[in-house]
């Protein structure tokens, strides 16, 4: 093994390509992974468009990681397939000490604040490894990270058996939430999505599509689109006493009909990232087959084809792209 490897590097502005970089250095308490698959996230698209405030040029992107442990340690064997919790938390603030390290006041992420996983190899903290069923399909496990976002959003939603659930946005996270809501006993899951290819993906998973002009009363509404027109209209298709879960990231303040919030005693709750146990639950859901993300994973590409696949995502083609690493 040479001292260099190929990785997807963002150079600043909207310039990114596959480049030769040094193999990762592994600090004390960290481990080296041979990457199996790394998913491309909307955040990666923002970074490579020069729109992410924390990313610094020269960064290897990618935080949706499945890898194999390069050298075994006390908890994981060499070659063992693992998922990764990409959250780098301080461990000392009140949020970290109360089991909420995903809300850490000094939150950093692998693939944003330090080199990530669209590469042959990546270094991650040993505590970040998530055990997965070694017999599970590794391609499906490539969807564990976005699925963990959905698992956490479901926890925040406190959905009840028999609830009617609405999801705005049929991207990877919106579809993951719809799958989880069905698994959690929703009586009906209705999705709102304008892009035809994404509507088709939602339909192929058996979900009902809401027409733009139809008002449906749902008990829990997930906003996985984060668009101003969604914020402005979402109070119109929720039952009194219902709950709006804001999953997508708004980049600026949005208008919301707060009178409806008052009169209907609506709740609006945020959800961000996930806890370690959400990742463990997501890995279990995939391994057991209770959630099959196959229709959402539209492209599995080599590192050589990663740039083209990302350009496709910018053009609205495909839903979830996985990039093969050095262990495939």
């Amino acid at each position, binding site marked *: 093994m040479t001292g260099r490897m190929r990785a997807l590097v963002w150079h600043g502005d909207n310039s990114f390509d596959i480049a030769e970089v040094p193999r990762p250095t592994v600090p004390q308490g960290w481990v080296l992974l041979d990457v199996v698959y790394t998913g491309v996230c909307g955040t990666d698209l923002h970074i490579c468009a020069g729109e992410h405030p924390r990313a610094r040029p020269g960064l290897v992107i990618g935080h949706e990681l499945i890898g194999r442990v390069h050298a075994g340690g006390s908890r994981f064997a060499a070659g063992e397939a693992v998922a990764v919790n990409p959250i780098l938390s301080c461990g000392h603030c009140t949020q970290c000490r109360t089991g909420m*390290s995903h809300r850490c006041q000094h939150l950093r992420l692998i693939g944003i604040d330090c080199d990530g996983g669209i590469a042959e190899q990546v270094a991650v903290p040993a505590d970040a490894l998530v055990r997965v069923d070694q017999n599970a399909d590794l391609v499906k496990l490539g969807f564990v990270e976005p699925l963990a976002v959905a698992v956490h959003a479901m926890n925040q939603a406190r959905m009840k058996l028999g609830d009617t659930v609405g999801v705005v946005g049929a991207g990877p996270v919106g579809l993951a939430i719809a799958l989880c809501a069905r698994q959690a006993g929703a009586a009906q899951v209705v999705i709102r999505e304008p892009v035809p290819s994404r509507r088709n993906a939602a339909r192929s998973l058996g979900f009902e599509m809401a027409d733009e002009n139809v008002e449906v009363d749902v008990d829990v509404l997930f906003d996985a689109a984060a668009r101003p027109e969604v914020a402005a209209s979402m109070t119109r298709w929720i039952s009194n006493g219902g709950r709006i879960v804001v999953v997508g990231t708004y980049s600026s303040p949005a208008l919301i009909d707060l009178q409806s919030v008052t009169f209907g005693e609506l709740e609006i709750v945020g959800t961000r990232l996930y806890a370690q146990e959400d990742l463990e639950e997501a890995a279990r859901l995939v391994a057991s087959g209770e959630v099959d993300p196959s229709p959402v994973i539209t492209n599995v590409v080599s590192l050589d084809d990663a740039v083209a696949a990302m350009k496709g995502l910018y053009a609205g083609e495909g839903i979830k792209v996985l990039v093969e690493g050095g262990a495939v």
Partner: protein
Amino acid sequence: MRALRKTAKAPGHVELLDVTEPEAPAGWVTLDVDLAGVCGTDIHILHDQHPYWPPVTLGHEFVGRIAELGESVSGWSVGDRVVCEPHQGACGVCYLCRGGFHHLCASKRSPGWGIDGGMAAQVAMPAHLLHSVPEGVEDRAAAVCEPAAVCLTAINRVRVMPGDTVVVIGPGTIGIVTALACKAVGAERVVVVGRAASRPRHELVNSLGLEVWDSSIEDVGEKAKSITAGRGVDVAFEASGSSQGIAMAVTALRRTGRLCAIGVSGAASVDVPWDAALMRALDVKFSFSSAYASWDAALSLMGNGLLNPAPLTTVYPLLDWETAFRAMEDELVVKALLHPDQEDGGAAHKADGHALPAAGERVGKGG
């Protein structure tokens, strides 16, 4: 330095010994101990009724000042007055540690039984478990921070609301501090229930502004109905661990009331009035040990004058540890504190300590 040590795995074998002062490894500090509280756990260790790894210095409740900083400790200075969570050895990677429940981690080795504790002139503790004591909180109150944090953790488990009527069974430190904290959270009426045997404590509880019912005189279930228009109380804390106490808590509660168990029974099983609890559709929570956020909350309440456990305490010099332990066992005092100064016997503290009248006879635990 002098340290009160459990020296062997058998009943007894607790001795005041001369030992080497502790050093602070990287990430740890040493503290000069000002006061160390005697807990039921210490007495159980004396009698070989709790797990421990001898030889070990007793005491997991203490307040002190930082004497020395180990390597790579930041954010603390020598002289800082602190209390310390007894959650050393938590693994940091299990589902409990990751979920904010490091106080329930199976790998935990607390001071006083797993590692050397605070009944000594000095103790070494990991810096990440320290909490700063606000100015104006006297040592005798800060020394009770650990039990207070246990109480706040329990209160958060059942969510006591302003306006609630609350009954607390068992007038020990945990019961009384829970009752005081329920007052601080805005409960409308808080009643502490004790047996005839704990009568010497009832006056003290009364003097703290809390109502006391003597269970040998009152029918607790009927009395609870009589103060709630026939409904029953909203919340009950069972801090005695006795089957009589559990029965009183259940019968005092209203339908859909909340029961929180914080008393250790010491038995493999206890009687519970099952159908009475079921037909009330009670919410039952158990609470054990103290969560991180409860320590800051307890200190904040003390610092703002909303919770003061100091009147529950009686200070003894460390040399008189046997007297202090016996006074706790005999329920002559609510919370005995040990002062490590050898010669003056902690006279400054003792002057305003609160000693109860002698109970006359040795009594067991319970409501």
